[in-house]
């Protein structure tokens, strides 16, 4: 296994570190399937996640947040950039090493109906991973019962099939499967988006309790800012394949810096809030195969300046926060 030579210092190091990650999908046309273009789904993303921390990744559909999660899991191949999980380079792992890593890196998808095998009983679903890695403690049945109890399901339902459960219960099964191997890191891709509010709250609470119990790290991918703000320690906002702002949750929600983050937050309908001071964005998200030059947000940005259509903004540190916007490059103006 490829181990980084430099051993960790006593300062806490991030569990997951991504540097300038790019995942592009080729667009093929014509008789010989020539690659004519690329959809730049993830286009230069850097971020870190620490142990026991939840990073919320928010953005609208097509911004590349799901592709980022899938690239981390090895379900999509990255074109360039680096991903380190506890100093192991995810981008250069052999399939065999990647399989070993599944013990530590797990995922919960949005739709349990399509991520749980309809022909498998719950006992087989939740113990498949631990059976694979020979980690069953006691009998398989007892282990499955323990797992179900942990996620708040009746232990006697182990011989039932996924379709016999409601949406919220099915998501609990997905969670039981994800935590079975005692992973350190779980990617939650829109894990509560398909659920009703009262059930959604149950699942969010379950994820928070499991995190406290096992010191889990989450990458919580969602389009729903309100949900993310209730579970994440930090939030990264994505737009068209790139991160535009990342900061502590309270900073992002109470004092968003990037014009896109501001528009996104003001667009969320909140009971009690008057919709009048809303920043309405013009137009729509441009295509990820031909992103606008300069700052990708500039055609829709209410604060666009001249520099925005020619130069892509660098990462600006602004009061200890990170924002990719020219507005914060010269705070004196």
């Amino acid at each position, binding site marked *: 296994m490829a181990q980084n030579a430099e051993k960790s210092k006593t300062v806490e190091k991030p569990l997951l570190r991504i540097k300038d990650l790019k995942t592009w999908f080729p667009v093929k046309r014509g008789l010989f399937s020539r690659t004519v273009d690329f959809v730049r789904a993830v286009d230069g993303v850097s971020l870190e996640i620490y142990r026991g921390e939840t990073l919320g990744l928010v953005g*609208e*559909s097509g911004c590349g947040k799901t592709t980022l999660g899938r690239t981390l899991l090895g379900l999509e191949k990255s074109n360039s950039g680096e991903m380190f999980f506890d100093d192991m380079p995810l981008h250069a792992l052999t399939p065999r090493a990647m399989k070993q890593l599944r013990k530590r890196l797990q995922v919960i998808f949005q739709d349990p109906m399509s991520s749980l095998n309809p022909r498998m009983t719950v006992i087989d679903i939740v113990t498949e991973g631990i059976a694979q890695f020979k980690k069953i403690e006691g009998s398989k049945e007892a282990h499955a019962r323990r797992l179900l109890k942990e996620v708040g399901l009746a232990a006697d339902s182990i011989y039932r099939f996924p379709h016999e459960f*409601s*949406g*919220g*219960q099915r998501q609990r099964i997905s969670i039981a499967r994800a935590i079975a191997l005692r992973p350190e890191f779980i990617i939650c891709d829109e894990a509560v988006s398909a659920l*009703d*509010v*009262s*059930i*959604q*709250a*149950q699942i*969010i*609470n379950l994820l*928070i309790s499991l995190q406290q119990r096992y010191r889990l790290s989450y990458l919580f991918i969602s*389009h*729903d*800012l*309100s*949900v993310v*703000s*209730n*579970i*994440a*320690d930090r939030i990264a906002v994505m737009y068209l394949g790139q991160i535009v702002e990342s900061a502590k*949750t*309270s*900073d*992002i*929600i*109470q004092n968003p810096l990037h014009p896109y983050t501001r*528009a*996104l*937050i*003001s*667009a*969320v*309908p*909140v*009971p*009690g*809030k008057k*919709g009048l001071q*809303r920043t*309405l*964005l013009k137009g*729509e998200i441009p295509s990820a195969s031909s992103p606008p030059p300069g700052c990708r947000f500039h055609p829709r940005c209410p604060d666009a300046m001249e520099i925005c259509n020619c130069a892509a903004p660098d990462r600006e540190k602004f009061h200890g926060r990170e924002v990719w916007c020219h507005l914060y490059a010269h705070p004196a103006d």
Partner: protein
Amino acid sequence: MTVKKNDSEPENRLLTVRNLAVSFATDDGTAKAADSVSFHIEKGENVGLVGESGCGKSVTALSILRLIPSPPGRIDADGIWFDGQDILSMPSKQLQDIRGRAISMIFQEPLSALSPLHRIGRQMMETILLHRKMPAKAAWQFAEQWLGKVGIPDAAERMYAYPFQLSGGMQQRIMIAMALMLAPQLIIADEPTTALDVTTQAQVFDLIRAMKAEDTSMLLITHDMGVVWEMCERIIVMYASRIVETGSREDIFSNPKHPYTIGLLNAIPKLTGERGKLNDIPGQVPSPFDYPRGCHFEKRCPFSMEKCVHEQPPFYDCGPGHRAACFLLADNAG
């Protein structure tokens, strides 16, 4: 023609639904989708029908236009009156005249509501010609004008586009144009923005607000409490096939009375930037094949009493226009 006048209705009442029950016969038994649903909509009023999936809100809306396929569906009601006409006993020819002209619908999935095989212009023209006597050319121009009004750039060109060539937000704008262009008296919007991103949702609601005529009423069906807060003056809350509470926006949000409404409002994740556990409602929604005899919320209710198990709670008045179906309110209602 069998137009039954409902004389007891107040002047400005546009729609009255009384004691609506909808059930579906399936192989597994009969599913009760809606039960004892009664409400009304006044002229120019925006009413929100909220509840979680399976609570019967969409079925209620579809019943208003008799769009429930029968069999397996079955509508039973004391009556559905629209503008003084009895919808349930109306011949289907007359109903077709109402659909799309007097009452129009905006559905959640524009791509499944629009025909994939026909160009936008032709689909819009079809609706216009069905309800208005005008030359085809004029109808085409009328449709093109409306595409411009709902903010579609290059409207003349987009008339020739197929639905799949447009983004979700654009498709929903076309649905809105089709729903509004014939100046309906009532718009039924069934989760119109659920498939859209928040910034697009904001654009769409802005558009509906700007385009809707003053005296046009709207019934907005949604699961999102934030959306009803923004769009509606009066709110109806449904749970497991029944209405549990109805009142003005302020009644529901500032002074909710039914334990389910209270629980629902507490369970919403708040956008405050403070992290922490949410107040969930424990338990599951009961199955529509096997609703309990008494209050449908009884099993999840923190205030459940013996009476709740056996009896269906009636509505108690909590203020002008504010009613909730819960036995807890029996004492102070008097």
